[in-house]
């Protein structure tokens, strides 16, 4: 990936919750089209890190640039970044009072200023892509977890973002539904979308990741391409973590 322009840059980022330091001097560069998978034990700061990229969390030190825009107090900067950065949550967070189609149309209509017809058309395109066009008129509560997560992915894609963030997208799912979501994510990776995923799905990571990142105690411990990462990680902590999650 060297030589390709960076699209996300974190420089010496710190994040505190009161006395507790969740991120410690984090430096990270994501390049256009790169697929990055972040893993690490719980409490290691993976979610905090990814949530700083669209400022759902405010960092307390250092700098974050997304597409050259600095994330700071300026609301216009934050919104500009969010327009181009999609996010998929562990708990789906679909809007329960809106139908699937309305969930997908809200952003395009209010933020991208599309007409109702255009937004509906776009929504149906992306529902097709996540393979649930027949659920358009239903409410989120009527869908299975896997279907809800695919709707959530489609909702982000409807904004036609340049970067997609995934915060443990399969952790809240029943085992039999994990693959339907991962399949959609693999397809998305194949389209060349820049992706940053926090996940423990190492099969998925091996399949799509360009870069693996291992975090512990709020710091990035290891950054490596998957070949090296899985076979020959340089840090002991990373090695023992991999042994634990790859045992089964």
């Amino acid at each position: 990936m060297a030589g390709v322009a960076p699209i996300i840059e974190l420089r010496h980022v710190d994040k505190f919750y009161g006395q507790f330091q969740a991120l410690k001097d984090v430096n990270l560069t994501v390049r256009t089209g790169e697929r990055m998978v972040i893993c690490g034990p719980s409490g290691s700061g993976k979610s905090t890190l990814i949530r700083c990229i669209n400022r759902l969390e405010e960092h307390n030190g250092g700098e974050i640039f997304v597409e050259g825009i600095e994330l700071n107090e300026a609301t216009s900067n934050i919104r500009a970044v969010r327009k181009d950065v999609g996010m998929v949550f562990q708990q789906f967070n679909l809007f329960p009072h809106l139908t699937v189609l309305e969930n997908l149309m809200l952003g395009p209509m209010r933020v991208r200023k599309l007409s109702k017809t255009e937004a509906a058309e776009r929504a149906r395109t992306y529902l097709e892509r996540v393979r649930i066009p027949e659920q358009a008129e239903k409410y989120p509560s009527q869908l299975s977890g896997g279907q809800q997560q695919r709707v959530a992915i489609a909702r982000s894609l409807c904004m036609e973002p340049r970067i997609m963030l995934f915060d443990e997208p399969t952790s809240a799912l029943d085992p039999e539904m994990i693959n339907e979501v991962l399949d959609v994510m693999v397809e998305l990776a194949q389209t060349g979308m820049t992706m940053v995923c926090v996940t423990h799905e190492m099969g998925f990571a091996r399949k799509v990741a360009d870069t693996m990142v291992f975090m512990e105690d709020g710091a990035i411990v290891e950054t490596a391409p998957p070949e090296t990462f899985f076979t020959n990680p340089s840090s002991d902590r990373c090695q023992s973590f991999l042994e634990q999650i790859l045992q089964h």
Partner: protein
Amino acid sequence: MTWSRLMRSQSASIIQYLIVVGLISYAAYGGAQSMGYNWQWYRVPQFFWTVKDGQFVWGPLPLGLLNTMILSIVSFVLALLMGFGLAFLRLSKLVIGNAFANVVMELVRNTPILVQVYVFYYVLGPIFDLDRFTASIMALAVFHAALISEIVRAGIVGVKKGQWEAADAIALTRLDVYRYVILPQAIRMVLPAMTSEGIHVLKNSAIVSVIAVAELTTAGRNIISDTFMSFEIWLTIAAVYFVVTVALSASMTVLEKKYAISQ
């Protein structure tokens, strides 16, 4: 809550209410008999309507009820507007707005509504040239705005954090986040509490009879001072309030059912 459970609980409470009312009426009737009260129920209908020269004429009770309704509806609408305003002030990061909202809340919650009505009519009335009807509306609206702001705030705070985050993540403006994501959910959540607040306004409106606003309770008082039929008239007035509030809460239940969201 399922529909059948709702029906069960509502009909159950109506039955309980009727039993209590029945017992009280029975006791009152017994007491009245023993004190030799002269029941004159036959004279009550004329206070609802009369027919003079073949012309249908509304009596003082329906006219009083009409004023009660106008008073309640106008006060409730104003209370809703002010209540939402106060709730947003309290949720905002504006220090002055926050302080203002808190002062209003504390003043309203820690003084009797009767005193508030007097303050609006006898103190603010002459200063701002308010007639009794306007003063009553203001007093009721401010009192209920304070209660409504608590309900609204609870509803907004009750919307899950993930909903704010999802709305933020698709780059909605703050206004759109409230308008399309948070308020629709918050309002559905607090609809039952709002309903009882609406009914509360209607019942509280009786208090403005102390400044002689021509509403239902005042109408009743005037009739009694003419006829001395206190038992019949007060029981009739109670029944009128009861019928109106039950009808209101039943129709709101239908509305709640219609807009319910399953999570």
